[in-house]
């Protein structure tokens, strides 16, 4: 099941509430004017349209977005979002427009608003330089072809018989796989492929001409008609003033601007490039920080909730044990990804509109609480019944016995599985990238595509995850060591 399918199902459930909500809201243009800023959602893993390095965005879409905001008299604010979740995020108000090389299609038109087209971009084919038998889309029958997930390239190829479509989260991963020989071709927007094969993926070439005629548009939520008119007016003015042409030349002219300049010097994608690591170091550290904070919040807030759930499950009253049991079953029985999407995209339909960071932290907390609850419950139930009897026979109440006798022994026993859960949480936190949080994995994605250097970035990201889990393991070891005299009991 793709994220898209999940989201479609979740959003269908929320659609009615959304419509009711929108009726009451301020118009989109008024909202932008009041806030004094135009929030632009973009998947910044797509040079030359958009790429990012930390909070620093660049690309054709970025420069165009800045120019439009200037025309509107407001400040542009770019929000990085995975292309996978970008439209639901637009609909729930995470940003005002999406400017992310989005092709205008009938299907998208049915649910979203588009500005006038701002650039023509057809699909183009890329293959390895040594490949001679694929010269156009007609030669793709029987071939395995890579695309970025949820793009018009995917939709086009799925209509062609005999083509096996391989979907990738970002286009650079598709190109890397092509270079590695695992797929036969990659289809994507012509400017992107030309850019990537010229500057980074030097073992690849584009073949033929663009074989579809597509127009890219700026995307708006359905209630944003007045904002759409204002954006269109801005686009016309930019065309007339020549500002548009300048931006176009900068990114698509004879000498494209080198966002990925460093990768070009690096001489291809085959080598590990220590210089690139030192150049991107501070962005990686930011990613590490985000991951560490999210995982720490999930664990620190999840522990008391998990403990409370476990206590509710083991105590005799059904009034508490049944709801706690249901909670644990539901949360453990659904994927964390769905929970993140639910909190961020569906709850706004019911009036709960949380920022991405809060949504991510809450999802991780509620998810880890369910797993921690089961760890604690198993721990409590592993304590011999004689311990509770002995404590009660001395006159302690159930609560006193739990607090003074059962739980202290439980904590010692569950330390190893708790450490496991902490490590799992650290790694699972990468899923929040779907709602646009730039944690470590997303940072890796951005840098790998911007510099077209997955072979440099991903090993470093893996190493950083390892370094993150290390302190957790050490703390657990230290606690176990300190508690050893009683572990023998």
């Amino acid at each position, binding site marked *: 099941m793709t994220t898209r399918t999940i989201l479609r199902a979740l959003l269908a459930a929320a659609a009615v509430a959304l419509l009711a909500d929108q009726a009451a809201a301020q118009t989109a243009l008024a909202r932008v004017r009041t806030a004094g800023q135009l929030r632009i959602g973009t998947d910044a893993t797509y040079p030359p349209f958009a790429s990012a390095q930390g909070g620093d965005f660049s690309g054709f879409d970025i420069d165009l977005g800045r120019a439009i905001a200037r025309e509107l008299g407001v400040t542009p604010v770019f929000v990085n979002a995975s292309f996978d979740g970008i439209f639901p995020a637009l609909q729930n108000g995470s940003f005002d427009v999406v400017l992310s090389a989005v092709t205008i299609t009938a299907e998208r038109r049915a649910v979203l608003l588009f500005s006038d087209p701002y650039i023509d971009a057809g699909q183009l084919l890329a293959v390895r330089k040594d490949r001679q038998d694929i010269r156009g889309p007609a030669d793709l029958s029987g071939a395995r072809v890579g695309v970025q997930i949820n793009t018009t390239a995917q939709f086009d190829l799925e209509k062609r018989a005999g083509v096996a479509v391989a979907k990738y989260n970002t286009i650079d991963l598709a190109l890397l796989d092509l270079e590695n020989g695992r797929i036969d071709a990659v289809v994507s927007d012509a400017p992107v492929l030309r850019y990537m094969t010229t500057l980074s993926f030097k073992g690849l070439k584009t073949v033929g001409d663009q074989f579809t005629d597509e127009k890219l548009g700026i995307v708006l939520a359905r209630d944003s008609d007045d904002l759409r008119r204002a954006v269109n007016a801005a686009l016309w003015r930019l065309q007339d003033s020549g500002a548009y042409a300048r931006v176009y030349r900068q990114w698509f002219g004879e000498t494209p601007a080198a966002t990925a300049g460093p990768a070009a010097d690096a001489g291809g994608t085959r080598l590990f490039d220590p210089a690139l690591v030192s150049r991107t170091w501070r962005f990686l550290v930011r990613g590490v920080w985000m991951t560490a904070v999210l995982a720490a919040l999930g664990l620190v807030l999840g522990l008391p909730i998990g403990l409370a759930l476990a206590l509710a499950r083991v105590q005799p009253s059904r009034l508490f044990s049944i709801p706690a049991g249901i909670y644990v079953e539901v949360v453990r029985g659904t994927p964390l990804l769905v929970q993140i999407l639910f909190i961020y995209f569906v709850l706004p339909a019911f009036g709960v509109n949380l920022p991405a960071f809060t949504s991510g932290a809450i999802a991780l907390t509620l998810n880890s609480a369910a797993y921690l609850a089961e760890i604690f419950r198993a721990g409590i139930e592993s304590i*011999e019944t*004689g*311990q509770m*009897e*002995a*404590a*009660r*026979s*001395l*006159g*302690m*109440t159930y609560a*006193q016995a739990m607090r*003074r*006798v059962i739980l*202290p*022994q439980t904590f*010692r026993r569950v330390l190893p599985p708790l450490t496991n859960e902490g490590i799992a949480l650290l790694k699972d936190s990468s899923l929040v990238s779907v709602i646009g949080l730039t944690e470590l994995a997303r940072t890796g994605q951005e840098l790998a595509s911007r510099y077209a250097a997955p072979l440099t970035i991903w090993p470093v990201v893996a190493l950083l995850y390892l370094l993150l889990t290390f302190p957790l393991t050490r703390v657990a070891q230290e606690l176990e060591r300190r508690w050893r*005299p*009683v572990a*023998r*009991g």
Partner: protein
Amino acid sequence: MIAVTNVVKTYGSTTVLNRASFAIAEAQLTTILGPSGCGKSTMLRCLNRLERFQEGTITLAGIEVPGTAHAPLSAADERELVRQVRARVGIVFQNFNLFPHLTALGNAMEAPMTVKKMTRTKAEAIARHYLERVGLSGKEALYPAQLSGGQQQRVAIARALAMEPDVVLFDEPTSALDPKLVREVGTLLRSLDDLRKTLVVVSHDMDFARAISDQVIYFEGGRAVESGTAGEIFGNPQQPETRAFMACFQGRS
């Protein structure tokens, strides 16, 4: 001190206690003796409300504990009854159930602090006193896992005594010990005479019962068959069940 009248306890269709009636005198050491599965341990657990029973009555240090069939108690009343009973009755379990995360001293201090809200200083003084009484001076800082079986039992006894109950129950105190320690336990129990506690021991060990008991109750089939002084029960048993048990035992040794 303790009067048990027509107590009946069943688990489903199994009757564990079948109209058990007997009396236990204050400040005496009474042994409930009987074969395995006769219900004597269940009887003991009823005495401090670790088990409930359906019919009959137990009167214990002035507290009346009714069967659940006649007078079902509200949750609050049951809690209060349990609190009262356990304030008067302590128990030393067959396998001791010491708290493994606490030292010997900690085991004996825990309940006085949490239940009686005693200060740490006062609880420690009491705990040290009783640990000394059971011969564990110098072992206060050791954890249960660092102590021998006999020493662990002594900690369990000190832990029960630290709550200063009127009655102390012992469930099969000799079964977890090797034979040479059995005599020591007997000596230890008799050394507590000056505390004037009512001690109730459940055992299937006749030698042990004969050596330590003031009073012996012979238990079989979920009821007290015969009750008397140790001399009476061992010297001149009246009931056929008691005689059969003695004969079997004598034949064995």
